């Protein structure tokens, strides 16, 4: 199994632990990835707000570069995953967009023929590797660690390609295969506020508070995320969002939990980068890890 890998900007910044743990999981499961050569920013939600045509062209440069490799491309960040998929769809649906993008790519000597599948790690792990293969490779079972699975938006919305839009379960099943216990979490696809915490802080904090409180209420010991922005919001603003009484809820990437179970050592999967440490929880659960 070999894939093109599109990390996106966040995985080189605040979301470094996501990349570290993702690659660790892939290594453990013999998935080979090759980083997309000279990839650029996908444009994210922000660019769409100012100039959508340009944002499609930006995303399309990555698609065009990926086409040369003739492999499926993995995009772990929710925003990248959506923008790349959306660009493909809009180029199919809107001739004007296709024209603009094709010309722009031509200007830098590229073409885009719409034959790269942009896929999410959840999709790859569940549908290509499979739960059975993963369970067989688990070295440090998570011993019923209570996890609130938080998918956020943009993974299954608006395009449901590999999971149910209203009640996605791919992450639930992957973590269960690693021995975790999934707690009831009705807000699993509710918005974390995205960049609102930065731009309209009061409102952003409200949304973050709902998500944290609900996870705690349902007995979660850790929240598992699939998106750098969700992870950042939920972890870094805990103190501001919930203070009476204060909350201490570790927020990890689902790949960090999986990598842990597959026997990776803490420092190779970015556990040390957490602001809310998971160590006390793991100690309580007597989950011994390297």
């Amino acid at each position: 199994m070999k894939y093109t890998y599109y990390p996106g900007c966040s995985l080189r910044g605040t979301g470094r632990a996501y990349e570290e743990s993702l690659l660790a999981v892939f290594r453990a499961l013999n998935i080979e990835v090759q980083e997309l050569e000279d990839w650029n920013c996908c444009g994210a939600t922000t660019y769409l707000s100012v100039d959508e045509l340009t944002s499609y062209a930006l995303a399309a440069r990555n698609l065009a570069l990926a086409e040369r490799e003739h492999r499926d491309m993995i995009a772990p960040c929710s925003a990248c995953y959506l923008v790349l998929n959306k660009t493909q769809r809009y180029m199919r649906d809107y001739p004007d967009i296709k024209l603009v993008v094709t010309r722009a790519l031509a200007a830098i000597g590229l073409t885009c023929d719409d034959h790269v599948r942009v896929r999410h790690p959840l999709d790859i792990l569940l549908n290509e590797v499979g739960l059975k293969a993963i369970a067989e490779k688990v070295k440090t079972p998570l011993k019923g660690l209570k996890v609130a699975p938080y998918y956020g938006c943009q993974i299954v919305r608006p395009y449901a390609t590999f999971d149910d839009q209203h009640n996605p379960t791919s992450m639930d099943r992957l973590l269960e295969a690693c021995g975790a216990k999934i707690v009831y979490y009705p807000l699993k696809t509710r918005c974390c506020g995205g960049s609102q915490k930065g731009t309209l802080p009061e409102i952003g904090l409200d949304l973050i508070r709902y998500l944290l409180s609900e996870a705690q209420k349902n007995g979660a010991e850790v929240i598992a995320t699939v998106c750098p922005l969700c992870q950042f919001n939920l972890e870094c603003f805990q103190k501001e969002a919930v203070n009476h009484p204060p909350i201490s809820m570790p927020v990890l990437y689902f790949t960090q939990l999986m990598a842990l179970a597959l026997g990776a050592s803490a420092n190779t999967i970015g556990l040390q980068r957490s602001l809310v440490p998971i160590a006390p929880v793991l100690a309580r659960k007597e989950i011994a890890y390297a």
Partner: protein
Amino acid sequence: MELKRTVKFEADRDPEFARWISHTVGGERIRECLQCGLCSGTCPLSLYMDYTPRRLMHLSREGFKEEVLSSSSIWLCTACYACMVECPKKINVTHLMYALKQRAIEEGFYPKRFPIPVMAQQFSRMVRRSGRITESWLILQVFLRTAILRLLGMSKLGLRLFLAGRMTFKRERIERRPEIAALLDSVAATRKELAL
């Protein structure tokens, strides 16, 4: 108490705006909107909006440009796509929110120092220059332009992230940076040529 005229004359309507919204990408079905309000109900941000998404859809298709573009709602949208998935008429509400943001920026319909358009502008500037985003620099630039004081409050968090290796001031760059400029210039040229 300030009393003002609230009645709307037909002359207050901008039919061109109504035409634009129903011809813009994602607006194909806006006229089919049943005004059921499901979008407003499902929107996690509608609690804070001056006009709910439902009302924005109606005001837009009727051409009440001023009301729509000066609404806070278009800035509150986080693009979570909940409205679009649930819409019984498959109206691309999320995308229309993007379209309205762009139009509001083009026509200058937002308060000064309003962080969202500033963030969008800084973002695009950084992409043009480097091809990638360095989050630390982006955040710094946005706060410098909108809320310098809040930057001080954030410094503690910034320091912790820096120590955890999640914030760096090393700029992320791509190799073939001129390609990005060429790409963007081509888009601008085609847009102009085709009047898109």
